[in-house]
């Protein structure tokens, strides 16, 4: 009361405005205190000490691959391609899978042989199967060429009991332009209406008797569709806020607004029906339960913590006993490997604890993800958890990372990709790995010395990769000669001599900077004396050179193909990688003559750069689990792992272990044959490679090709530079007035010199 009295007094004195302001402030203050209270209690709920423990099972049947999965309570129905022993081919079989007992029962379904594919299916509310099947029909002429082909797509309701077709509908009656459609998702709502979705064209809705109700057109690509527990059907699409859920509104014949409170997720995203909440959402990282009524989502676990690769998830469901089941699929050359995993909630204390190793990186790449999961599954002593710092531009993530490196939060294993390796190495962040190699009996000589050397500082090995490739720049040997390297002036002389308008295929100013400066920034900075040479002739020449290029590349411009332009010398240089022998073979074909991998300009004329493919690793010098961290590093450079990279053709690039590399070369040189009609063995192409409009059949590599690639791989000795964005930002920012014609190149260079000089002084 007193306060009100006071307020009234004040109101008289100061006017109503003040009172309003004061009450506003009071309200915000109280509300903020309320807000504080809320934020305090939230984390406590999570810390109830329960964790999910995985149990891996083999599937009860063997299949080449599973084409469709439909959960139905504690059962699931699966359509799989299995070997057909009678016809020496594959056929589609539908299994009724008892998830509680992990047994499968084969259902005999009518009309499912031959070239029939099951596109989508589900268990309808009436207990029967509803599926979309397509049939591809063609006629062959005498030469085995396909002359006439057609495709039919049918929606069928099939009795689970005897496999007979209860009802069917030719989808040509439902979907316009059926020949261009491929039904990806099929859902049923509470009324028994069926929703068929084909990517981005539209959602087609039929009632339970398969009579068409309506079409709903789509603006964006649909990344998922699922029926919620409440009986509504939702689709997932990407918009400017990331991935959002929208309700399919049949009555209004359109999509609803994006559901609020659903956080953006990445990677392999899938939505599945849930028992306890509205929907299950699985992404590459976590599994979440979504409650659409309250617009909240609850994270159940991170896939990494249960040793499952979230990228491989095919389906997730909840069982009546509270367990969660999932099927993960791992791609391999000989047929996909499926694993059925049950996740049980247990008290953390009941689970044997392993020593925790933290892998810290800006982001987790797929190859490393796989390696960590394999390590976690097979190692009894250590468990690796992942801390991703994020990969935004503003540098605050790197600041976080650095702060952690100095604190007790220090990760044990460090993913060096996109971090300043040499800085960490020289500051003592990283542990020398040579002693560990020796202790484990690994011979340095088994690995590519030049790659190890790139990670060396003062004879100590601070980082390592399991797989790598080379980034380089390509030109015709007839134009630039044999040597793999040139200096900046040589490069500028070369392009001046020729037509500078078309030096690169898509040259922008930024790409010129990257090509000429960023990859060899040390040419412009003498760290010994602290002198910078941005006012020098070479830099000013580069500025003037870059000015001839457009600010942004117009990718839409109509031009003849790249191969033709390279061959006629309209384009002289091409930035590219050496990631396989096949790529090397293709490049020679693309240019139409022998190619020199001349690389980036550099005063030592060594322009080819080593780039890690799928993670480069270092061990933190402050780690308390160095042995465990090393065990992981050892696992990714071990003979078995390196060989498996070659055998499974996994990842991208070359293994670092010489033996595996030679095995890879051997594979590349092994020709493949087919038998022609007369029974002669004829060499066939191994694969087809293409670039832009150019395509090339790749035959087995010759010894010459392999030797050339080996030469490139073993001669590169510099890591692809992670030039500090501070420097690139200064250069692009201050070069701009010159490009805009407001300043002379020398003036712009002067400002660049001035600002970078501080950078250099600071770091000496």
């Amino acid at each position, binding site marked *: 009361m007193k306060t009100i009295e006071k307020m009234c007094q004040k109101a008289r004195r100061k006017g109503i405005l003040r009172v309003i302001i004061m009450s506003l402030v009071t309200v915000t203050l109280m509300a903020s205190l309320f807000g504080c209270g809320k934020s305090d209690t939230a984390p406590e709920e999570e810390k109830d000490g329960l964790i999910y423990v995985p149990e891996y099972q083999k599937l009860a049947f063997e299949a080449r691959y599973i084409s469709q999965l439909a959960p139905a309570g504690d059962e699931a129905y699966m359509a799989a391609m299995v070997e057909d022993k009678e016809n020496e081919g594959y056929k589609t079989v539908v299994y009724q899978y008892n998830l509680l007992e992990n047994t499968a029962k084969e259902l005999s379904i009518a009309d499912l042989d031959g070239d029939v594919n099951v596109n989508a299916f589900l268990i309808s509310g009436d207990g029967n199967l509803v599926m979309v099947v397509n049939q591809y029909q063609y006629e062959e002429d005498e030469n085995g060429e396909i002359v006439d082909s057609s495709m039919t797509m049918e929606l069928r309701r099939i009795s689970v009991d005897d496999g007979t077709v209860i009802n069917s509908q030719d989808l040509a009656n439902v979907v316009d332009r059926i020949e261009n459609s491929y039904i990806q998702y099929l859902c049923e709502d509470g009324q028994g209406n069926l929703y068929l979705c084909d990517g981005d064209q539209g959602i087609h809705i039929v009632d339970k008797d398969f009579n068409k109700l309506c079409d709903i057109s789509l603006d964006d690509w649909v990344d998922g569709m699922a029926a919620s527990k409440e009986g509504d059907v939702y689709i997932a699409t990407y918009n400017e806020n990331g991935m959002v859920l929208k309700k399919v509104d049949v009555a209004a014949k359109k999509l609803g607004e994006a559901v609020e409170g659903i956080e953006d997720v990445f990677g392999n995203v899938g939505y599945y029906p849930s028992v306890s909440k509205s929907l299950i959402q699985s992404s590459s990282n976590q599994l979440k339960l979504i409650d659409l009524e309250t617009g909240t989502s609850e994270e159940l676990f991170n896939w990494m913590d249960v040793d499952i690769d979230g990228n491989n998830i095919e389906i997730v469901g909840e069982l009546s006993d509270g367990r969660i089941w999932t099927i993960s699929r791992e791609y391999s050359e000989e047929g996909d490997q499926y694993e059925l995993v049950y996740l049980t909630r247990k008290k953390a204390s009941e689970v044997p604890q392993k020593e925790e190793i933290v892998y810290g990186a800006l982001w987790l790449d797929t190859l490393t993800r796989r390696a960590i999961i394999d390590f976690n599954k097979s190692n009894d002593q250590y468990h690796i958890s992942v801390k991703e710092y994020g990969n935004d531009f503003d540098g605050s993530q790197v600041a976080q990372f*650095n702060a952690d*490196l*100095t604190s007790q939060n220090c990760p044990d294993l460090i993913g060096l990709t996109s971090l300043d390796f040499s*800085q960490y190495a020289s*500051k*003592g962040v990283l542990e020398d790995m040579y002693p560990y190699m020796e202790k484990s009996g690994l011979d340095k000589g088994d690995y590519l010395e030049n790659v190890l050397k790139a990670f060396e500082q003062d004879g100590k090995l601070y980082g390592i990769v399991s797989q790598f490739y080379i980034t380089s720049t390509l030109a015709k040997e007839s134009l630039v000669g044999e040597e793999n390297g040139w200096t900046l002036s040589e490069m500028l002389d070369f392009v001046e001599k020729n037509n500078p308008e078309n030096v690169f295929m898509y040259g922008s100013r930024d790409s010129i900077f990257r090509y000429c400066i960023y990859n060899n920034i040390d040419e412009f900075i003498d760290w010994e004396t602290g002198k910078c040479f941005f006012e020098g002739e070479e830099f000013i020449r580069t500025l003037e050179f870059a000015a001839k290029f457009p600010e942004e590349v117009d990718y839409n411009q109509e031009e003849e193909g790249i191969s033709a332009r390279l061959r006629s010398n309209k384009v002289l240089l091409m930035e590219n990688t050496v990631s396989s022998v096949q790529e090397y073979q293709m490049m020679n074909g693309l240019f139409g003559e022998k190619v020199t991998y001349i690389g980036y300009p550099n005063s030592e004329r060594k322009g080819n750069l080593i780039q890690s493919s799928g993670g480069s690793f270092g061990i933190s010098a402050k780690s308390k689990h160095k042995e465990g961290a090393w065990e992981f590093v050892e696992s990714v450079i071990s003979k078995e792992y390196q060989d498996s990279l070659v055998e499974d053709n996994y990842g991208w690039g070359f293994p670092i272990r010489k033996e595996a590399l030679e095995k890879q070369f051997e594979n590349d040189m092994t020709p493949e044959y087919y038998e022609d009609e007369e029974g002669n063995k004829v060499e066939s192409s191994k694969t087809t490679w293409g670039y832009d409009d150019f395509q090339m059949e790749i035959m087995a590599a010759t010894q010459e090709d392999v030797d050339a690639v080996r030469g490139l791989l073993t001669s590169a000795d510099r890591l692809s530079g992670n030039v500090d964005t501070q420097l690139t930002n200064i250069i692009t*920012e201050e070069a701009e007035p010159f490009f805009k014609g*407001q*300043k002379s190149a020398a003036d712009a260079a002067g400002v660049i010199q001035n600002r970078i000089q*501080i950078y250099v002084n600071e770091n000496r």
Partner: protein
Amino acid sequence: MHFPKSRKGQRMPRFAAHPYVKENNLRSIERNTKITVPSPKRGRKSSSNKKKHRGRLISAGYLLPSAVGVLLFFVLPFLIVVYYSMIDNPISAQFVLFDNFVMVFQNAAFIQAAKNTFTFSVSAVPLAVVLSLFLAMMLESKIPFQSQFRTFFLSPMMVPIASVVLIWQVLFHFNGMMNELRSIFDLDKIDWLNSGYAQVVIVILFLWKNLGYNMILFMAALSSIPKDILEVAILESASPFQVFIHIKLRYISSTILFVTIMSLINSFKVFREIYLLKGDYPYDTMYMLQHFMNNTFSRLDYQKMSAAAIMMAIVMVIIIGILFLTENYFGKDVEG
């Protein structure tokens, strides 16, 4: 317990605005108190000492929460800084004693930063003091809309830094308003932020932001000069200049020192504006000590950052010490 005076005090916070009135008022309270408690001091020396001792402890108790917090969040971090300044790097943490100080002292970037920070503070702080005093004198002379003007001058305090930076860019960009203005008079364009003028721009920015608050401080001080003294001076035919030098300046000398301290604090905060204008590595005349610390921090060179910080702290102790002494010397006779 009977407390008429304190209640009275509670009801009249407004009197606080006029120290003269208030002090008199309080003095009368004091007199009253003395009457209600007869012979308070004599003969009870020991007990009063005990009481004093107890009061000392209790008053220390009031200090405690803050002291613990400051110890934890300011002193401890500072000690960590001291520790960092004496190791070779934060990872291997080898003790090197004063090597870092020697290294930092020889670092060209540090010297540049120290020089810039020094010249900035030496030019901007006195300017801020003098100009705000000038503004205060101007407003003090009973001009119309005085309180509105006061509000206007304070307004820059409220503008978010991002907007300030935005507007400053529009003004001082190579193609910005300032250069457009110059081109009207056929003058060459100046790249304000990438030349020797950069520091001038920053000084203007600093003044614009801080003059208002300083002015308020001065206005308050000027209004608290006893009116009778000024009147007497006028009657004694003192010129305004003499009044200013001998009375006003004297009376506000402590405020001048206070404003100087506040401006000094704020002069260190100008880094954020420079940072948002030109990033981590601005043109060399704008490169401040905070840039040096910020950058060395992000490059894991904590030892360099710490050494620089400690040197800065030492200089600060010296400056504050000098200000303390100056105030003691000048301020005593008027403060009473």
